[in-house]
């Protein structure tokens, strides 16, 4: 049970990073990225190839994942040059599917459906089995915290204000002198790089990745996390990811309680429960569990005249 809790939390940390990454793209900037899993997969395979095929240390693998993920994000966004809603959504969806097919078919690079074995792990030697799991959890939580701090600082800065303005009505910042395309590009690249980092962590955690790990299901969970938690609020993204992962992973425990259901039915039940949660939240709290704040943050008031 203890080991299982650690495993759930480790997975949750990966989803927290994914939700934070989608938040800077969609929550803040309004960019519809339906291809979250594509960037996640690119990060996983890049990191794996770096450490296993090329024998590089794991930090270099993560770094490569971030760089390649960011480049992929830049490429995808330039393909749909205006980055306006529908076009970007379709292009990203196509990108994710193309990546999955590439993972499946470029056997020489990815070992295809047989799975890519990754021996390198983010641990120090000589720890016992239990301690290793805790150590990995610590590394993942640390990574999630770093991503949170970086993105949260950006979200609360004047840079983030421009992103929000673009989300609300891109013509307004444009006519006020902001280069909207450059901002969209930066937000998209940043988010894609963070998604690739999540993929890298995941790959070194599960140690065998197959193209089946990178289906739309991942993107759906990340989108649900963000909508439930509160798009536009970085803390909301964290809470959403924790809630959705808890339900998704926690429903495994339902299986022994519901012997009248087959395992397949139980696994479908998980999505039914999450789907119901999504409907309830969207109906009764459309801005999410932790809504975006509108009022200005505590700003310095004008200094009162002396005397």
């Amino acid at each position, binding site marked *: 049970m203890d080991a299982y809790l650690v495993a759930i939390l480790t997975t949750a940390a990966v989803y927290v990073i994914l939700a934070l990454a989608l938040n800077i793209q969609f929550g803040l900037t309004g960019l519809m990225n339906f291809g979250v899993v594509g960037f996640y997969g690119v990060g996983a395979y890049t990191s794996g190839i770096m450490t296993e095929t090329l024998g590089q240390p794991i930090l270099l693998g993560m770094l490569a994942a971030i760089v390649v993920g960011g480049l992929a994000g830049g490429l995808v966004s330039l393909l749909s040059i205006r980055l306006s809603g529908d076009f970007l959504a379709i292009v990203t969806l196509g990108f994710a599917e193309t990546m999955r097919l590439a993972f499946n078919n470029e056997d020489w690079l990815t070992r295809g459906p047989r799975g890519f074995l990754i021996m390198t792990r983010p641990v120090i030697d000589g720890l016992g089995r239990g301690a290793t799991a805790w150590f990995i959890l610590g590394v993942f939580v640390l990574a999630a915290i770093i991503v949170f701090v*970086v993105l949260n*600082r*950006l979200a609360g*800065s*004047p*840079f*983030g*204000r*421009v992103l*929000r*303005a673009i989300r*609300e*009505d891109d*013509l*307004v*910042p*444009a*006519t*006020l*002198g*902001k*280069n*909207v395309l450059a901002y969209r590009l*930066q937000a998209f690249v*940043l988010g894609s790089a963070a998604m690739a980092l999540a993929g890298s962590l995941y790959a070194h955690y599960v140690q065998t990745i197959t193209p089946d790990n990178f289906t739309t299901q991942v993107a759906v969970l990340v989108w649900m996390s963000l909508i439930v938690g509160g798009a536009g609020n970085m803390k909301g993204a964290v809470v959403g990811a924790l809630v959705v992962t808890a339900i998704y992973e926690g429903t495994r425990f339902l299986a022994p309680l519901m012997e009248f259901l087959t395992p397949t039915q139980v696994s479908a039940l998980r999505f039914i429960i999450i789907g119901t949660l999504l409907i309830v939240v969207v109906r009764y709290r459309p801005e999410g569990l932790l809504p*975006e704040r*509108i*009022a*200005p943050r505590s*700003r*310095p008031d*004008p200094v009162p005249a002396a005397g």
Partner: protein
Amino acid sequence: MKPVRIEVDGLTKKLGGVAVVNNVSFQVDAGQIMGLIGPNGAGKTTMFNLISGVLRPDAGKLRVNGRDVTGLPPYKLARHGIVRSFQLSRELDRMSVLDNVLLAAADHPGEHMANALFRPFAVRRAEAKLTEKAREMLALVALTPHEAKPAGTLSGGQKKLLELARALMAGADTILLDEIAAGVAPHLVEEIIEIVQKLNRDLGKTFLIIEHNVGFIRALTSRVVVMAAGELLAEGSFDHVSRNPAVIDSYLGQAA
């Protein structure tokens, strides 16, 4: 002679094969309040879209402060000092009034990703300074008591004033106002007239104004340009053009 702020030189824009603006030329001098009037469908808003870079002209030249800026995107035109308001005001509903104005600040260091990440103190200092300036702009348009409200909760007239404050914050020397008095309560129209006059007189701002409210145009503008069916129909003082038979025929009709 005053310098020319905006020079529209033979601008033409075709939409769906129809020339909605056809070979129109006029100029706006620095420090002038100029009106752009004409019946619905005359091409006034299209002209604004051309001058603010939202649309690219099919032919003709646009010069701002003597520099050719034809075909530049809106954000570059804004940096040349041209900022516009919109016919249906486009405030950012889910952002506070103050944030709406702060957004307009030109050259805010905190709008660069690297500064936002690595120089939080410098960014905070700049933000504090610009917040002071934004509050001055809000004071100019009498929106100070509303600064913390989401912009979506403002009244129609207040939203127009917010757009004006944003243009000022952006450092515009030329402000294009698209029907700023439309759908605004009469007492607020008076207030808008006073504010525009004050900005023109005290800060030397140049205005180009699209308006249907004849009283508003008469009270504010020194010159007007009349457009009809995409063409320039007449130009001169309002009293001058309002005696022009073609203008009476196509636009003013029995109103004049």
